[in-house]
């Protein structure tokens, strides 16, 4: 069930009611039941996958942890022994080998499942298109199953967990239900944030000790959820109309350069509000239940560099790649060439993670290239700035950097959004060949699928978004924290304003097509 569905609005309060009133020992099982029902609501048959995936990672985790325990015992024995124990070195090596083998096996299984469900058709399609150059009409059949919801997210969460156990950072979970709740925690399972064993799992271990009846925490969690609904239902879903009327395959040739540009800008805000909206709802829901999960967004469009952008955008994924791919590959510890290679690998994988398509790969590659070029040109940039005596601590300089970063990010979004590579090229070329900025003064914005009234509603929403993100950027305060520091009437006024705005102007209900979350498709 989508977060913006009536079913969820009935489901969540019911879960909360049970969770809050059951005996403490039963709380974990209420969460387990909720996760089960939530996942089953998408597709009953994948509950089996959920159980099997959970069981496999559970047992492998225990097995790896078992090797860690054995390693520790042997190391302790060796440390305490007065003389060298014969064969202990080999035993240690064998345990390490076994441990590694277990990890690799389970990781391969995880990636394998992901590959089968998510990438099979991409590979089949790619092979078909290559061979069809030589044998016209030749093609491999496509698999017609639906992708299990959240597979990219819970797979990465599971892989992260296994690697944490492997590294000894966390102990393996010995409670199967807790393990399943960790992997398939219902606020997070659809689109993240991707959690860590040393955060969410640790909190789940202490679920019986949580003091649930904390009015301030519940109110703040509700405010955070409300903010998520606001940016999703009021902003993202409205912008979807503009994006569809400009960047879809059929529309690209019907619109001019200005409309394409507006479409790209609209998409950059849509994907942000859609994804951040979901993440915020997830964070808020978890907070109501007493859990603090990782923040996924931190005013990303105020970033001054691409590097900074990735510290503020989809934080749980970028930190996951840093900790579990970039650093194991060597990070920046093996020279610049290797660093750049590692960066490019990470971003190519990231692109591929987002979607089984060449456009996603190009998108990832662009971000990798941005960072590499940024790094390579850093010394030159520094010397030019010094030569021209540019005031690098000035607001104008920061704004310029923000502007450039925003342009680069938006350029990459073209590939992310385009339905094919040729569509992406066509959008880019038409931006320049169909240059028609005068249409802006002709009211082009009112001809992109939204009425004047809808544009006005959207504009107010964007203004509020700007204010909230600016507060987050400048004061480093999330909306709930900021409001707690204000007077009661102001706090209530803002909350009631947001509530009413969402209830009245949110795009939900049977008169609207429920806009699925963009990241749910990953």
């Amino acid at each position, binding site marked *: 069930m989508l977060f913006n569905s009536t079913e969820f609005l009935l489901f969540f309060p019911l879960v909360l009611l049970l969770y809050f009133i059951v005996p403490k020992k039963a709380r974990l099982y209420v969460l387990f039941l909720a996760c089960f029902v939530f996942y089953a609501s998408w597709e009953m048959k994948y509950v089996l996958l959920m159980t099997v995936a959970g069981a496999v990672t559970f047992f492998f985790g225990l097995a790896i942890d078992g090797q860690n325990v054995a390693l520790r015992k042997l190391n302790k024995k060796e440390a305490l022994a007065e003389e060298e124990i014969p064969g202990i070195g080999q035993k240690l090596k064998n345990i390490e080998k076994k441990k590694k083998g277990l990890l690799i096996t389970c990781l391969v299984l995880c990636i394998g499942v992901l590959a089968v469900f998510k990438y099979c058709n991409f590979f089949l399609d790619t092979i078909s298109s290559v061979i069809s150059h030589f044998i016209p009409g030749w093609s491999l059949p496509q698999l017609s199953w639906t992708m299990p919801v959240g597979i990219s997210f819970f797979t990465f969460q599971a892989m992260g967990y296994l690697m944490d156990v492997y590294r000894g950072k966390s102990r393996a979970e010995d409670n199967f239900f807790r393990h399943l709740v960790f992997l398939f925690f219902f606020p997070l399972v659809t689109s993240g944030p991707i959690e860590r064993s040393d955060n969410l799992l640790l909190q789940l271990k202490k679920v019986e000790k949580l003091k649930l009846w904390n009015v301030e925490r519940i109110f703040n969690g509700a405010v955070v959820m409300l903010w998520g609904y606001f940016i999703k239902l009021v902003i993202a879903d409205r912008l979807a109309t503009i994006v569809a009327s400009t960047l879809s395959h059929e529309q690209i040739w019907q619109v001019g350069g200005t409309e394409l540009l507006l479409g790209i800008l609209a998409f950059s805000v849509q994907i942000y509000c859609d994804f951040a909206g979901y993440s915020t709802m997830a964070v808020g829901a978890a907070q109501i239940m007493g859990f603090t999960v990782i923040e996924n967004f931190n005013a990303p469009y105020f970033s001054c560099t691409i590097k900074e952008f990735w510290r503020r955008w989809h934080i749980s994924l970028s930190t996951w790649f840093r900790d579990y791919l970039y650093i194991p590959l060597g990070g920046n510890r093996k020279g610049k060439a290797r660093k750049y290679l590692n960066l490019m690998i990470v971003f190519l994988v990231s692109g591929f993670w987002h979607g089984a398509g060449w456009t996603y790969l190009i998108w990832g590659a662009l971000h990798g290239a941005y960072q590499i070029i940024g790094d390579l040109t850093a010394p030159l940039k520094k010397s030019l700035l010094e030569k021209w005596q540019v005031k690098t601590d000035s607001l104008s300089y920061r704004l310029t950097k923000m502007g450039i970063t925003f342009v680069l990010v938006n350029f990459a979004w073209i590939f992310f959004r385009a339905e094919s590579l040729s569509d992406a090229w066509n959008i880019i070329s038409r931006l320049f060949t169909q240059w028609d900025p005068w249409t802006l003064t002709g009211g082009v914005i009112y001809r992109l699928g939204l009425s004047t009234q809808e544009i006005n509603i959207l504009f107010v929403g964007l203004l509020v978004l700007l204010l909230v993100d600016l507060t987050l950027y400048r004061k480093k305060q999330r909306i709930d924290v900021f409001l707690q520091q204000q007077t009661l009437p102001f706090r209530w006024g803002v909350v009631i304003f947001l509530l*009413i705005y969402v209830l009245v102007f949110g795009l939900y209900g049977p008169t609207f097509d429920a806009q699925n979350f963009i990241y749910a498709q990953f």
Partner: protein
Amino acid sequence: MMKKKILKITAFLLVFALTFGLLSHILSFKYYDGMRISKTFYRQEKNTIDVLIVGSSHAYSHFYPSVLWEEYGYSAFVLGGSIQPFWNSYHYLVEALKTQKPKVIILEGYRLAEAKDYTTPYYGIKNTYGLNWSLNKVQAMLTSFEKEDWSDYLYPFNNYHSRYGEINAADFTNDFGCVYYDNYKGDLCSTVVYKELTRPDVNAMSKEPRQLGARTEEYYRKILNFGIENQIPVITYITPYEMPAYEYGYFLTGQKIAEEYGMPFINGNELYDEIGIDFSQDYADQYSHLNRSGAIKSTRYIGKYLSEHYDIPDHRGDEKYESWQINAEQFDRFHIKDGLPQISDPKDYAEKLMEEKNYSVFVAVNQWDIASDKQKQAVHSFFDVLGGCPQTVTDGFYAFKNGELTLEDGQQGAEHLIRRDRTTDIRLRQKEMEFSLAETTPYYCIETNGSEESYAIAQGLTILVYDDLFDRVVEILYWDFFDDSQGFLRENPYIPKN
């Protein structure tokens, strides 16, 4: 500390609930063929309705409580809804009997021909959302929408929150924007005459009964049972329409069922002559909805039937039933504007306005000097009846209200605001008509929505008649000084038709 928190939470919830409640009221659907009827039902005084009519659009189009009141003193209410199937009629009856004890129930039986198990959600909304929240409403909604649609339709705000683009002044009032609804009795009147229907040959139709739709039969029996349990006769009356042969079979089955329960059944399609239905004059559209002429006949027929078979009290003169008296008095004014659009003679028109009261008249006079003496005298007489003719009539604006001359303005640049709300802006404005670049001449005109809707005849009177009781424009009339026929014109003869 705990007490303070509880107080805070309660206060917050209260503020939110009040705000939300207000918004909900403004945004909620106010369909004239659904919730407007049910909402006004709740305003009826307890235990005042003696004749309760339920059914589809054939109910609210074919029965006039005002006629039953005027001719028999019966207090009737039509609790109908568009495409109202029997499962909704049943729940309407359950709801009605919470506050009313009717002497008879009339079930307009057209929906015996409903073969489907569900109507579209659109009609489910119209026949349930107007009920007040109760177990009965929830049951009505559960039975009206298919299971897979429950999450979409069981929470009404889900559906009407997006009405923000259509709200108008009527959404902010309790009377749907017109005081007529203060005494409304659930009927709808059309004066359109649709001549394309033909009288069915019922005698030639098969007399083979047809199986009713499963849910239709289930709830028909429930309604009849309901009548027995509450000791109220349920009269199934199929009001006359252009009945197709295959639907006759459903009504024959319905008749048999009604007989099982000992309840009366009248098929008006077997009584066209007795009712006096003329298929070329008495219908308003291709869906066989009776117009005013036909509905009066249909109502008179059932009224006579009721008077002959049931002992229903005559409440005329009883203060408790004043609402029905007012409704009857206002019916013609609301639906046919007191017949004013049919009157062309200015003096007759003015006399009718004075007879009915609560009308304002706004007049723009142009080129008074070219009017003939006869025309000038006629205008003087017209003004005299309305409230008194000014000593000198010139080009300009004149207004009359309740027998008084309230405005006389022939000045350059004259402008008067008559009424303004979200959807209406009526004003009198003196403008300049351009003949050439150098030559302009002033003329007085009436605007109803800015310069987009501007009315003026260059040589004559432009008259806007305004209903002060119902807050609406009755019509705009023209009196052309170049036309000696002396009657009002309803269209400006100098503006070409599109």
